[in-house]
């Protein structure tokens, strides 16, 4: 359906992962701006953003109709739509594809919700492993602090309320995020994430991110294909 995952593609796939509040979206945004400014062909895509699937997700979340299984499947549907219509064709065309969250978000959150890990990995079996996955690591308290200070209106699923961890939404959020973090830390080794110390300043992190990026990806090769 999508060709072999081992097939060498001219483009490169870069993902960021981490807890809410870890600053990963800011970092990938800055990386995106930098690459765009240099004239590279770059494409940015976000978790849970496919137009086709959005309506169903919104409805399901609003009515609290989702079970762990359908919650997971609906996000996989969204991912597949973006993957097959955008990410993969663009990788074939030699683009730098930047993803704010990738399948690891599902592996972490859905496993916490009780989905079988092997089932989840098979579900996303069609997706390529990114060339670099930056994981923004932050102590739980710091991540919680950032979210709870700035955005006190927590959403039902975001706080893991469907798991009945606590009747108090803030407490539920704390427990849920703690469990998600545990999953990430296990995966960091399993999938060889590039771990970033997210406690440092935004600027310092970005400098390091760009340095790692340049070390792992031969940008000169991308310049050659880019005809202006």
């Amino acid at each position, binding site marked *: 359906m999508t060709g072999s995952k081992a097939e060498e593609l001219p483009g490169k796939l870069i993902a960021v992962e981490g807890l809410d509040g870890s600053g990963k979206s800011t970092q990938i945004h800055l990386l995106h701006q930098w690459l765009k400014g240099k004239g590279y062909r770059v494409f940015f895509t976000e978790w849970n953003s496919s137009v086709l699937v959005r309506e*169903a997700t919104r409805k399901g979340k609003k009515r609290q109709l989702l079970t762990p299984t359908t919650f997971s499947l609906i996000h996989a549907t969204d991912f597949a739509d973006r993957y097959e219509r955008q990410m993969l064709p663009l990788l074939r065309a030699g683009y730098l594809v930047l993803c704010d969250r990738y399948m690891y978000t599902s592996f972490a959150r859905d496993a916490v919700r009780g989905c079988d890990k092997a089932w989840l990995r098979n579900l996303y079996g069609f997706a390529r492993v990114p060339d670099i996955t930056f994981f923004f690591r932050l102590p739980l308290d710091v991540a919680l602090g950032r979210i709870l200070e700035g955005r006190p209106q927590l959403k039902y699923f975001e706080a893991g309320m469907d798991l009945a961890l606590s009747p108090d939404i803030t407490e539920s959020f704390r427990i849920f995020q703690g469990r998600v973090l545990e999953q990430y830390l296990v995966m960091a080794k399993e999938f060889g994430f590039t771990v970033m110390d997210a406690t440092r300043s935004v600027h310092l992190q970005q400098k390091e991110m760009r340095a790692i990026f340049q070390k792992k990806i031969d940008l000169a090769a991308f310049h050659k294909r880019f005809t202006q």
Partner: protein
Amino acid sequence: MTAKRFYGIAPAGIDAAKLSGQLIVIEGPDSSGRSTHINLLAQWLEEQGYAVAQVGLKRSTLVGAELERAKEGNVLSPRTLSLFYATDFYDQLENRIVPALRAGFVVLADRYIYTLMARDIVRGADPEWVASVYSMALIPDAVFYLVISLSTLVERTFQSHSELGYWESGMDCGLSRDWFQSFVRYQKRIRNEFLRMQKKYGFQAVNGNRTIPAVDRDLKVRIQQVLQRSE
């Protein structure tokens, strides 16, 4: 009562031991008479004092409407479409089939994962990936597959619609530019996939070329056995 099982592991939060009803699946191509027979069976079962629930594909409140709309536009990749169907399936499994079985109902399913898997595989999906996606499906108490000859299928399809549908002709598969030719090739491929699955999943083949009352009698005899077995 025989204990229910899942093909793989159960979905999170579902206890198979609490499912006391029976899940009976009718599979077969469009125009094979599935819905006619399900209606006859439902009436008959209720007359005998069994509570009946009917389920089918694309009927979930979660994505049913979106799926319908997306198919009209024909803009989804095959994998997205198959995951959309999987979402619809599990939504119904968890929110309709399982609660009905827990309450002791006989659930009549107008098609099940087999149609979904056959369609995906015919469109080039990796059979192992497909089987894995549906591995949390409950194993039915019985699956009846209405087998119908291609000529009868064509005849009945034209009788009821006087045209061939886009999806049931597999026009998205690029098998032929000729609509009729595509229909024939697509239906053959689906059938071959069903025959392959028949052994693996233990379908009972039912000759659907006969008259409605003849097929109905046949199904009732077999379902009676299923119900007796589980009492």
